[in-house]
């Protein structure tokens, strides 16, 4: 406790950010230390798991130090440790879990294992102090595309998921093919602003009626076929047009399904979360469609959209209040479900 407030340390190492943060009373952000590896992986055109694991190990202790120092909190003040234990890269997750368990043991602090995806949704509590469940959530990132009904704190009902590639993954892949490079999401977003979204007629994939699932791998094949035929007929490829058209085909389906879910479940609030929630066109389109149904859209700031320890601390706080506890036998679960 510090100044009468419950202090949580959140630790996150599921992909390529080594992150630690401190919250007070669950949703007041005191610090948010993030050590991003993005520059290292850019050289390889994507996240290299073994390199990510090595970098997490190099950075984990200094990142925890920074989170404590920035928050002006001593480890003795910390009441709870929350750590991401899945889903993610197993070699990356184990670093955070090993460190979190060591702190819990060394300092006799309770520990909670946090589902990374629950963390992304919990980021909204930090950004919007008055937000309380129930609400609908859309989690879009490099690894995930999910529509989630949130009836209560520490409860997440997954309504839909991608059956193949995540939205961010689709952006990464197409960005690579048209030479924009890694990370694809922000680069597609930028290039698309200069392009014509109707230039290429990519087919929208909605799957079965009423399904909240996604499929983006066919879109990738469409794009490859289009590029091949353009090249064969000797036409010059307009990168911005392809980026804009491809992006539109992804975000239109995502936006439609998210709004449809909110309408079906009678939720008048939609929380956007995950790295791709920063996508300009997705935000714009969701705002447009939500307005038609009187749905309020809540977007966390970019820093809380990407992977961070703060969202893990907040999710851990509510899980702890709900009675969750992890033992020293906590393991990483790379395929952890919602």
């Amino acid at each position, binding site marked *: 406790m510090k100044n009468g407030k419950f202090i949580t340390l959140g630790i996150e190492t599921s992909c390529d950010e080594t992150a630690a943060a401190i919250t007070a009373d669950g949703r007041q952000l005191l610090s948010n230390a993030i050590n991003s590896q993005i520059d290292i992986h850019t*050289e390889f055109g994507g996240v290299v798991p073994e390199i990510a694991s090595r970098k997490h190990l190099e950075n984990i202790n200094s990142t925890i130090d920074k989170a404590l120092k920035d928050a002006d909190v001593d*480890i003795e003040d910390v009441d709870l440790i929350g750590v991401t234990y899945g889903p993610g890269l197993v070699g990356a997750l184990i670093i955070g879990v090993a460190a979190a368990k060591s702190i819990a043991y060394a300092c006799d602090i309770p520990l909670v294992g946090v589902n990374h995806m629950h963390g992304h949704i919990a980021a909204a509590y930090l950004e919007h102090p008055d937000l309380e469940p129930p609400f609908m959530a859309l989690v879009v990132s490099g690894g995930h595309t999910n529509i989630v009904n949130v009836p209560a704190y520490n409860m997440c009902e997954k309504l839909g998921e991608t059956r193949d590639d995540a939205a961010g993954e689709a952006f990464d892949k197409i960005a*690579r093919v048209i030479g924009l490079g890694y990370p694809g999401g922000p680069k597609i977003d930028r290039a698309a602003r200069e392009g014509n979204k109707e230039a290429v007629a990519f087919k929208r994939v909605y799957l079965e009626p009423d399904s909240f699932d996604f499929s983006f791998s066919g879109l990738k094949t469409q794009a490859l076929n289009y590029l091949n035929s353009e090249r064969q007929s000797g036409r010059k490829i307009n990168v911005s047009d392809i980026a804009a058209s491809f992006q539109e085909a992804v975000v239109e389906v995502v936006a439609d399904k998210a709004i449809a879910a909110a309408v079906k479940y009678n939720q008048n609030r939609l929380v956007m979360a995950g790295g791709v929630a920063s996508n300009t066109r997705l935000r714009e389109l969701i705002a447009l469609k939500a307005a038609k149904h009187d749905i309020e859209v809540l977007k966390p700031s970019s820093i809380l959209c990407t992977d961070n320890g703060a969202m893990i601390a907040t999710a851990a706080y509510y899980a702890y209040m709900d009675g969750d506890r992890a033992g020293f036998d906590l393991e*990483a679960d790379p395929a952890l479900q919602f």
Partner: protein
Amino acid sequence: MLILAIETTGKHASTAVIDSDGKYFCAESTNEMSHLREIIDLSDKALSNAGKSKKDLSHVAVSIGPGSFTGIRIGIATAATLGQMLNIPCVGVSSLEAMSTGISCDERYKSCELIVPMINARRHQIYAGVWQNGTKLPLKKLNEDRQYMIEEMTKLLSSEYKDKICLTGDGIDAYEEILKKEPGNYILADENIRYQSAKNIAMLAAIKVKAGEEVSYNNLTPDYMRLTEAEQRLREGTLSSRIKNL
């Protein structure tokens, strides 16, 4: 002085506590590769076997590799964070040197002049080194510890070293056929002493502490002895062609 030693670079995780009288208290997992799940409980068990608590520790020692990459990281992340949070220094110990030291303390191998620990690194490779057997610790290293092709090591041993050699480590299990084909003046370490053990890490850590070779938690570095595959490819120029394929 009370050192907690952690060894997670092999198949079975183990921990040991050594006190100022040189007494050991050990704990070892019976499960394979359950390092992350068990390492804290094993640490606590070694401490309670010693009748001590974590607050009594003066140092945390850890095997920094070579060995399982994942194992190395679990061990170092645990040791570094314990050091950081208990506010005590850390000691990094080579898994290979520790294995040699273990053999040197065993009466059964007194007649061997050399000790060669070899850890299986797959695809005909081993992490290995050559140490001179003796009673004075630390042992003298005669040949660089690094990654070798198994054939390279057997050739080196048969051409450079005529003395009796004790081979140890799971490289023996992996390359038994090759070792048999190239008969040298070998004896193979018994299975009850062949593999990584925290007791040996504790023994070397006590020596290092006396020599002032302790480090802060943020200077505890792994010794993988191998670049990642992606880095190798980048170096060889074979990376770009691969990542362009979807």
